[in-house]
């Protein structure tokens, strides 16, 4: 038994354990570390603006990199408005058991779900993921949230929207809209997870999905 | 009836008992001539068999065969079982008594004997039950069976042990009147209630109820002492443990008149096979450890174990396609026995082909008191009950391709050495070119399945 990846529940099959992008001639970097930081800061401001403050805002990161991004967003929200508690207002949501593609893949390890200390009941939940692609991960996340409580609203933040949606799902906050071919692979690299500088890279994929 | 098919054969360049090449002529049901290659003229009309490199053995004799008829004709009949025997190189088999009805009367043993005679593949010598219905309570009419047309000399409750010591003593004594022998299935019943496999490391791990070696050894120890006390001869069926070999060795050193057999499967298979939970490997006595396998090989090589007997135990698919705990005990063996003995004893250098002739023909014929017709030397005037083996051949065992009606061979898919090229029963080929000859009917004169008592003269042979 080998669930295969260290990224249980990771969405949209866009990342796996491959050599770094610099060793792969078919890759190009579309966002650098500074771009990623700027995008997150902008998203944080948009979240505050949209919610008219930070009251009742909680962040739910989708493993693996969505959790990291949500933590970074939490720091930024707290910087913008000290009323935001980055501990009480941050959680992570594993959607593995809600996925509709389990039978198309090797068995995935089930990840951790940890609700924000403040809960989600009546809150404005901001789902955070790294790359928005088919929308199926977000569909699974919405189902999972529905089983966990009844938020006042659910919003979606993603660092990259690469298009090719298969469901009527639209992000509320986007770091970068990135036109791609379906066959391409988009990877988000984050220092906490990948041990490299933050980056978004595109490579010619193996026709995934 | 008429004889169809030739009755004169010239076997060219065969090696009697694995010795120097010779030409051997079979005619009139007996060995008519033996000479150096090329020195023997073929009689007119004789069939020539090129036997270069092949070993000529006396026809094999199985002291322990389950033919299942009457009662379980869905698993085997006398006809199918003896056909399998011929394919395996046998010219005589002893049919065990645990049929339905049990072979515990003159009527049943005569029925089996006649079925064997009519089938014509091998001489069938019924074994009589020791106790009525194999129930272990009172002696069957051993004398009546001995004096029936079947002339029973071997008595056994095989499948069950004659565990009551006084009953065993009486049986050992009683058969002396007609030179019979009790063949004991050594299994202490209380120590083996519910037992499924050898008790040891494997049974502990896989959770099947254990069958301790001592359950076999305790009975053998008791029986050799009983045999000594009453001065009878005893035969130990299918001994399977190192301890049993030791006890028999000790008994023989004391001069006790005991003989012992080992099955082919106990010469090669171990209880590790139970890990597959494949009931093909469920057998009584159970497959033992590698150390036991080595001990029975050593015992066979040094003569402690007198014979190899198949314990050919055909079972229907229904009785084997089920849980291990619900499956029947037993495996087939007639068509693989010689190959297993070659593989384990000859090819390993522990025995010669002359030894093979001893353990698979001469000694079992002597124990069963059919030594006037079977297990004879390859010599002029002797009955032509012979087996021709190609030891250089190999084959992969295919249960479905065997002559036996049942598919429960434990050797399926295994490559075994040696191939029976031809089998001759009183000069008539039952197997030729490795193929069983069906529809070759003996003439009336050649049909007498041997007179059991008396001198070694080939009575009942080739009356033409």
């Amino acid at each position, binding site marked *: *038994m*080998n*669930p*295969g990846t260290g990224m249980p529940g990771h969405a949209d099959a866009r990342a796996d354990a491959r050599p770094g992008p610099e060793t792969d001639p078919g890759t190009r970097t579309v966002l650098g570390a500074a771009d990623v930081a700027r995008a997150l800061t902008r998203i944080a401001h948009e979240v505050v603006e949209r919610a008219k403050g930070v009251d009742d805002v909680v962040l739910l990161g989708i493993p693996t990199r969505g959790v990291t991004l949500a933590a970074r967003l939490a720091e930024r929200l707290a910087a913008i408005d000290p009323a935001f508690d980055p501990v009480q207002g941050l959680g992570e949501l*594993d959607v593995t*058991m*809600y996925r509709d593609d*389990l*039978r*198309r*893949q*090797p*068995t*995935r*390890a*089930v*990840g*951790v*779900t940890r609700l924000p200390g403040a809960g989600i009941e009546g809150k404005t939940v901001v789902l955070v993921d790294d790359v928005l692609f088919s929308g199926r991960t977000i569909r699974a996340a919405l*189902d999972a949230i529905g*089983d*966990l409580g009844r938020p006042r609203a659910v919003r979606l933040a993603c660092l990259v929207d690469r298009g090719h949606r298969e469901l009527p799902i639209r992000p509320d906050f986007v770091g970068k809209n990135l036109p791609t071919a379906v066959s391409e692979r988009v990877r988000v690299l984050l220092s906490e997870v990948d041990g490299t500088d933050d980056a978004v890279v595109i490579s010619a994929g193996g026709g995934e999905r | 009836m008429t004889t169809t098919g030739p009755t004169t054969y010239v076997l060219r360049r065969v090696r009697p008992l694995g010795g120097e090449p010779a030409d051997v002529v079979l005619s009139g049901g007996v060995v008519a001539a033996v000479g150096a290659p090329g020195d023997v003229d073929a009689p007119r009309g004789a069939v020539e068999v090129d036997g270069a490199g092949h070993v000529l053995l006396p026809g094999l004799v199985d002291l322990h065969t389950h033919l299942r008829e009457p009662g379980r004709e869905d698993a085997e009949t006398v006809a199918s079982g003896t056909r399998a025997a011929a394919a395996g190189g046998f010219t005589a088999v002893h049919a065990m008594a645990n049929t339905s009805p049990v072979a515990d009367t003159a009527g049943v043993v005569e029925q089996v004997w006649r079925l064997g005679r009519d089938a014509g593949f091998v001489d069938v010598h019924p074994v009589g039950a020791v106790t009525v219905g194999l129930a272990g309570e009172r002696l069957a009419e051993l004398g009546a069976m001995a004096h029936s047309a079947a002339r029973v000399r071997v008595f056994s409750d095989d499948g069950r042990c004659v565990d009551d010591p006084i009953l065993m003593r009486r049986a050992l004594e009683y058969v002396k009147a007609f030179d019979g022998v009790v063949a004991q299935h050594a299994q202490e019943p209380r120590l083996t*209630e*519910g037992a*499924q496999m050898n*008790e*040891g*490391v*494997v*049974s*502990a*791990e*896989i*959770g*099947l*109820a*254990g069958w*301790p070696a001592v359950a076999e050894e305790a009975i053998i120890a008791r029986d050799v002492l009983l045999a000594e006390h009453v001065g009878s001869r005893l035969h130990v069926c299918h001994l399977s443990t190192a301890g049993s070999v030791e006890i028999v060795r000790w008994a023989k050193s004391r001069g006790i008149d005991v003989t012992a057999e080992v099955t082919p499967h106990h010469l090669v298979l171990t209880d590790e096979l139970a890990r*597959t*939970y*494949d009931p093909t490997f469920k057998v009584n006595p159970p497959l033992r450890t590698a150390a036991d396998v080595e001990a029975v090989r050593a015992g066979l090589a040094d003569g402690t174990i007198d014979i190899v007997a198949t314990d050919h135990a055909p079972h229907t698919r*229904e*009785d084997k*396609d*089920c*849980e*291990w*705990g*619900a499956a029947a005990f037993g495996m087939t063996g007639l068509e693989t026995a010689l190959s297993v003995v070659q593989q384990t004893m000859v090819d390993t250098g522990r025995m010669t082909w002359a030894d093979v002739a001893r353990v698979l023909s001469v000694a079992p014929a002597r124990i069963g008191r059919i030594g006037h017709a079977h297990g004879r030397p390859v010599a002029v005037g002797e009955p032509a009950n012979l087996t021709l083996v190609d030891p250089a051949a190999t084959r992969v065992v295919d249960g479905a391709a065997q002559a036996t009606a049942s598919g429960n061979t434990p050797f399926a898919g295994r490559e075994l050495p040696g191939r029976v090229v031809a089998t001759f029963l009183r000069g008539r080929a039952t197997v030729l070119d490795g193929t069983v000859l069906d529809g070759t009917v003996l003439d009336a004169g050649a049909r007498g399945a041997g007179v059991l008592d008396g001198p070694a003269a080939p009575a009942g042979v080739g009356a033409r």
Partner: protein
Amino acid sequence: MKHLLSTADLSKDDALLLLDTAAQMAATQSRAIKKLPTLRGRTVVNLFFEDSTRTRISFEAAAKRLSADVINFSAKGSSVSKGESLKDTALTLHAMGADAVVVRHWASGAPYQLAHAGWLDAGVLNAGDGTHQHPTQALLDAFTIRRHLAGRRGGGDPDGVGADLAGLRVAIVGDVLHSRVARSNVALLRTLGAEVTLVSPPTLVPVGVETWPCRTSYDLDATLADWRPDAVMMLRVQRERMSGGTGGAFFPSPHEYTRYYGLDARRLAMLPDHAIVMHPGPMNRGLEISAEAADSERAVIVEQVANGVAVRMAALYLLLAGDPSAEGNDL
């Protein structure tokens, strides 16, 4: 992972994945909505050739919490070739489109045969076979031990998620000879790094136990006093072992068994403060375990039952959720 037949087949990574998945399953079971959509459209058959209401409802709850369709198939009375054969039952389940078969059988090896005979292509989950194995029981035992004791070593998850059982000592007491629970636990606990001592009267230890990766003892008092186990697992004593029966009694009297091998208040007091008391159930109170021990604060027996559902959810998830033909799926 195609089948779960024996804990002896599990690598340490496999076992940890099962336990860690069970931990996530357990987390979902504290929520108001316990049902997950994970196995929607998949069919799990509970095939019971032997009565065990507890085990059946535990598997049934696990499958239903994952939204699988559950069919209960009681084939009792099929012992020793009476009634429908194992093979025909398997062919029937195959025809019905079972995705997984949870099988309890009186015959050791029956689940192995179901998995390997080619009669059906469903995943097979052994829910107890004869005196052989009961892998989900051992997994729930290990899960319970880890939850209580692995956190004591400090660092890591307080519930022990991700941790093995290295350094922990588990005494398994009672009828080891006939116990699939003992066999399953010895293999799994050793794989996870725990040390095991089997404590039994000599009549209830299998010949061949010397090759098992554990210690054996005939003396419960000495084991408790000198070896200081972190967990004591009491095995159920079957009534038929006490007297008569086919093999005769394995010990002189229930009273004598209790005196030497029962867990009572006195022996309870000998345990280290942190030690837990376990029992796979159903208990014979007053025989292998006294009421004081069963009801004490150290007893985690009820929790074992709850953990059973989580562990069985994990096993069903890992057996059924993925594409069995996909790469990297080779348990």
